[in-house]
């Protein structure tokens, strides 16, 4: 068993309307001093069996094909345990 985390973020040059909305809401709630918010998503995958190089490559493929939209998003794969 292994746990792999895939973090997906909008690419830096891409407009992030969700992050912008959060940035707008923070000062309205009295939280000052935040200059930028980018909102992404996190996937935690439980992988059966040993996490081989081949399995990890497969996780990257999952991230590329399903978990992210590579046209507008970047992803990062991290092995947690």
């Amino acid at each position, binding site marked *: 068993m292994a746990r792999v985390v895939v973090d997906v973020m*909008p690419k*830096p*040059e*891409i*407009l*992030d*309307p969700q992050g*912008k*909305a959060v940035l*707008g809401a923070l000062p309205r709630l009295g939280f000052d001093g935040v200059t930028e918010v980018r909102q992404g998503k996190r996937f935690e995958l439980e992988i059966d069996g040993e996490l081989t190089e081949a399995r990890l490559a497969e996780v990257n493929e999952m991230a590329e094909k399903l978990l992210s*939209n590579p*046209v*507008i998003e970047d992803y990062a794969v991290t092995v947690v345990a």
Partner: protein
Amino acid sequence: MTDPDREQPWADLGLKADEYAQIREILGRRPTSSELAMYSVMWSEHCSYKSTKVHLKQFSEIPQETPVGKMLAGIGENAGVLDVGQGYAVTFKVESHNHPSFVEPYQGAATGVGGIVRDILAMGARPVAVMDPLRFGPLDAPDTARVLPGIVAGVGGYGNCLGLPNIGGEAVFDATYLGNPLVNALCIGVLRHEDLHLAKASGVGNLVILYGARTGGDGIGGVSVLASETFDADGPAKRPSVQVGDPFMEKLLIECTLEIFAAGLVAGIQDLGGAGLSCATSELASAGDGGMHVELDRVPLRDSTLAPEEILMSESQERMMAVVEPADVDAFMAICAKWDVEAVVVGEVTDGDRLLIDWHGERVVDVPPRSVAHDGPTYHRPYARPSWQDALQADGAEALPRPATGAELRETVLKLVASPNLCDKSWITDQYDRYVQGNTVLAQPADSGMIRIDEETNLGVSVSTDCNGRFAKLDPYSGAQLALAESYRNVATGGARPLAISDCLNFGSPEDPDVMWQFAEACRGLKDACLELGIPVTGGNVSLYNQTGETAILPTPVVAVLGVIEDVTKRTPTGFQSAGEVVFLLGETREELSGSEWANVVHGHLGGKPPVVDLGAEKALAELLVEGVGLLTSAHDVSDGGLAQTLVESALARDIGVIVTVSGDPFVALFSESAGRVVVTVDHSDAERLQELAAKHGVPAAALGVTGSDAIDVDGQFALPITEARAAWAATLPSILGG
């Protein structure tokens, strides 16, 4: 500083050698990189219409008036504006967002909607409805499964968030659109006559205000690169740079802009679309009476690392530019602040005749604005009737094997009803909010979309978009006229008087003389048809390079027709409304099967000549339909799929069947796609009145039968139960797209 002897990257920016030489000649020196960026985007095919303007200019020969009055703003403005009576004016326009929607279907389609909405807003109109004519590859192709759901979700996502009803459009499938889907977006706006605003920068000393979203790296080079080159060509500048839409920002922009208009605070206004600030500054300045000076470093940025040329080319969405008198600036800023819209004075109108742009004190642009916005290159591209055109036209579908028995006719009806182009489209349209704002009178699957614009008087407008690209391939001149005729007829079918057209001309590469001939023929056809019908072209858009490899799309001149109806509560509904009514077929049926859905679906055949266009007959039919409001209990246009499809759709509207008797060859009667035909119903007691009305207008009217029962019953041939027809019609999209 850059080395002055270094070769400039004009070729990577999409400029040709002679265009670069022309820029040097205009300026009398080497352009700066910012100037080069501006010229390259503004002289791209998408912005300059350099290959097509020699053909498009014939549209301005059409008298600029509609059957009910003069146009208040014509071709060349952001969108044409029509008088519809009672002090109201309406503006509408259709544009393409094809290539961006292939790269990123959701955002491409979403920003297509956003762009056309801002065009309408810039005329001073409140956007009231949108429509989206869409074209995809074969329904079962893997790439269609990628692009269709994204595009539909993008259209719905953006329009629904704005609170704009989506009242119609098309979804058409053909192999030539695989790898090059078409996403055309139309918006309708309403204004009072006195609220009309034109895009110009006048009045020396007036300030130039940029307001709306911040500028980021969105779509840099997109306008010249994405819209003007095919995808399979390699090159460093070809990277997709996707614009992301923010419909909530756009909603604020709409309300903010309308309040600014109402307060009388703008001298000129322009939306930022393709080519962003390059386009807005040069177009505003060249339409005004002076020059303009802009300090580019005042532009609010989302990404502080952007270079000036990138800021000039950025296509960040949800931005507008206004020209405001100095005394009005505070009031302008106060309204922007109220709507949470960032606004910055970026420049002023000057008494010179140059567009000057500075970046941190350094002059980066010093150009005559007209040379950027209007005096781009004009190409007289070679065009010639394709060598294959005669052979294509000689291969008519009339010779193909036909169903002979009643049982075979029945099978053919079922097969066609379930085919991708004729099946139920609610999988798509159910994702769109069709009734928000409570003014939608007709929407999909009606022949046209109809919107009430005055709640007291019930004045309304109606719009339809149509194009049969197969007809246009067989004969682009009459194919374009058939698109116009169908759209015109669809508007009249609901009881509205057709007033004007907007067109979105989607074609392949202009460098191919075959394609250029298709384009020239389509334009000629539209102009001739407009002259004969007495309606103007109010504007539109051209999209070229729609091809995959060497294969161009079917020529697809999408024509939108707008009509006016004095009282929407009296419109004629689509489809049978109750049993026991008499069914008539108006118009003449000929043996016209080439390019038909029958030939396409049953035989995979495309050849022959398209149906005959008789614009005199179309006009007479439209007049009958408009005068018949109140007499006609329902009306439905006969087009794709022929009479059989019209009868099935009319029956499915309210589960009311029909018993008809067809004269002559039943196959031809049911499947011919002759133009100029509509199925109407009237109360039993009104049958004679209808015949008198038809005689008055010189329109053939044949009694077909009576509504009622639970089947589509063609006497002596077959009876198709409504339940069976519905099952076949409704199953197609969900079975392939899921859900």
